[in-house]
């Protein structure tokens, strides 16, 4: 691909839309202790309820 052809293609894309740019990691968000605890609580909650649903489903099959 020539430089002119590349330039023409790039015109229709946003700069941060190029594959090389979307591969660039955006960096970690600093989570407060309160948010971390809330996320873990939600995680434990959904795992517990999922186990209950799966147990019920398997019991109904038996």
């Amino acid at each position, binding site marked *: 691909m020539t430089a002119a052809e590349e330039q023409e293609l790039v015109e229709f894309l946003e700069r941060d839309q*190029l*594959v090389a740019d979307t591969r660039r990691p955006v960096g970690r968000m600093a989570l407060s202790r309160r948010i971390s605890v809330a996320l873990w609580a939600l995680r434990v909650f959904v795992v517990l309820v999922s186990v209950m649903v799966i147990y019920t489903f398997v019991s109904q099959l038996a």
Partner: protein
Amino acid sequence: MTPPPAPSLLDPTVGGDGAIALPRPPLTPEDAARSADRFRVHNARRHGRRWTLLWLLIGPGILAMLGENDGPSMISYAASGATYGLGFFLPFILLTFAMAVVCQEMAMRVGAVTHRGYGQLVLERFGPMWGWFSAGDLIFTNLVTLIAEFVAIRIGLSFFHIGAGVAALLGIVLVVFTLSGGRYWRWERIVLGMAVFNGLFLVAAIMTGPHWGKVGHALLTGSPFPGGSFNTLLLLVASTIGATVTPWMIFFQQSASADKGLTPKDLRHGRYDTIAGGVLAAVFGCGALIAGAALFGHGGSSIDGLAGAGFPGALKLVSGNAVATVFALGLIEAGAVAILTISASTGYAVGECIGVAHSFNNSTRKATVFYGANVGAALVAAAIILIPGAPLLSIALNANVLATVLLPVALVFLIMLANDRELMGKYANTALTNRIGLAIVAFISICGAAYGIDSFLQTVHLVS
């Protein structure tokens, strides 16, 4: 003196130290393919061709919504109609699709602004542990749901006396065929063309000759409210929610919006796309319920009893062969489209979390993991439905319930990403969107937990 605004995390001209402008990176074939699509959008916008622009920009929203009008969802709606008739569940379907539009708009917006998929952003912003938890939830629910999609195709085909082997083969051939073009645009248009046939459920509903006055009354008042078993009601409420808002839809619409090349300039059309998808899916979903309601009073309340012959067989006895045929074809379509979209969301999630190429704009050689996950997920699900004696309807309904139970975590991360001003800048959520989003999370958590806990307590005989 006010400090200058922090540089956006997405600005490629700003280096990690915030100072040096970077040279433009080399273009890839994926960039070239996306640029060709954006060229047409650019031209339509420049020449004021509004309808062309709309045609070019629709896709991810309609596909997410109609993809979620999948086999288990339509069976779930029809089961609600068969069990309770017209009433509470008609407006409830509209409510759940309104919730879906709010969530999917956020996913579309984050994808268009950041050009990154959901899995990639969760992994990078919250760390690998949360990223892999999200991807793990998605892959697990996707596998269960994919099994249910093959089940739907199997139920539909069995009405025409075609066996499970053909259902499995049909699904796999479709996945391989749609993946073979190496272009997002081609994949999207093929699946959109197939998704139009989701309207068959509306046709089936009209053909059953429902009392439209009762339909209107049910839509406006939500009555009669369902009676009978509280646990069955909870199961249908949870599975109806799981039929409209699911983790894979969030992964899919955000990743597909980025893959399609949407930008902040396209947000208005992205919203049209999402709302149009929501409206169409709600109408067709109500169609499935109305068609199922024809079985109300004809043994329709015995949901398990319908599992063997399936809804088409039961409809044939009550409403005639034509209605049953249309419903069976609808189930085949619903299962087929969902296999394509759910497999795609699996491919996006795996590719994003591993950090390899994850775009339909790549060749199979360049994106082996992405295409492999697409086909692999479908292959596993297809193999499972070939097991004789599988409890078909139970799998379909429980697939939706599992999606409901696991959804709150995915939604919380989506809301956090949509509020992330370093990523989203002026496109971040408004206070109103946040309030609605958190209300949806609370509502879905309560419904999913209510069914899970009540069923569990009944199973271990702690309540009767």
